[in-house]
């Protein structure tokens, strides 16, 4: 199962003051806080670790289909690759660009390939653009794809052509939209791999 989280560093700077008293300690354990404060760039490290927590949370929530919660301190990002939520382990991959950080998380034992796409949003209606890009990747008509959320607010992509439900994680922040998905093994349509 998958999750992803994108941080627009410009938006993050405008929206959040992570140096605010109490902010770090509500999200990060003492050890994680040390790692952030001792990093070459704490400003970047704080969002690096935040995006890993969020990505792992989304994967974890999808595994258990549990109600949305907000308890970031329980998601342990001390290890640079593996994120622990209780006894569950998720593998995260984080990429940095000048103005954004993007993390993906999958169950550590997962072997299925995940695909992703990332783009700059040009207007408020990013979902239409997202669907057209996904349609291109899936080589189907955009009208055949529907994004829906289940009762727990977990998104999935419905492909009407093949009548399949594809787990998809969508993250938008500031100027950017990112999504990752994992194809069910039975998915028959040829899929063009997408690069971020």
């Amino acid at each position, binding site marked *: 199962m998958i999750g992803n989280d994108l941080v627009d560093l410009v938006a993050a700077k405008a*929206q*959040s003051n992570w140096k605010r008293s109490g902010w770090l300690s509500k999200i990060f354990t003492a050890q994680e806080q040390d790692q952030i404060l001792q990093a070459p760039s704490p400003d970047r490290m704080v969002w690096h670790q935040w995006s890993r927590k969020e990505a792992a949370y989304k994967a974890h929530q999808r595994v258990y289909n549990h109600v949305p919660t*907000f*308890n970031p301190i329980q998601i342990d990002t001390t290890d640079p690759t593996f994120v622990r939520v209780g006894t569950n382990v998720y593998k995260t991959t984080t990429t940095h660009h000048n103005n954004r950080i993007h993390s993906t998380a999958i169950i550590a034992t997962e072997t299925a390939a995940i695909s992703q796409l990332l783009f700059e949003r040009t207007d408020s209606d990013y979902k239409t653009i997202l669907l057209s890009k996904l349609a291109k990747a899936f080589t189907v008509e955009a009208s055949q794809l529907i994004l829906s959320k289940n009762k727990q607010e977990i998104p999935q992509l419905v492909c009407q052509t093949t009548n399949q439900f594809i787990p998809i994680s969508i993250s938008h922040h500031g100027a950017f939209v990112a999504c990752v998905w994992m194809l069910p093994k039975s998915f028959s349509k040829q899929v063009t791999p997408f690069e971020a």
Partner: protein
Amino acid sequence: MEKKLLLTKLKAIVAPYVQNPKGLERLNEDTNFLRDLEINSANLVDVALDVEDEFGIEIDNDSMERMLTVKASIEVIEAKLAAK
């Protein structure tokens, strides 16, 4: 504290973080911070910190975990105020 006053105070606390103003106009007990107000999840921490400052209470992690809706937040604040 009267529930109506509590709701007014909570609305003022979340307002600076709201990205969907229509959601704020329609704010009620069922309002979800992420879905309806489009508050960025990193700002949920600020909401918790602002609630602590406004009401003079401490929001522990188990309480913050639930504070994703107006209803749950009011329940948390009322319980903390009663325990003061």
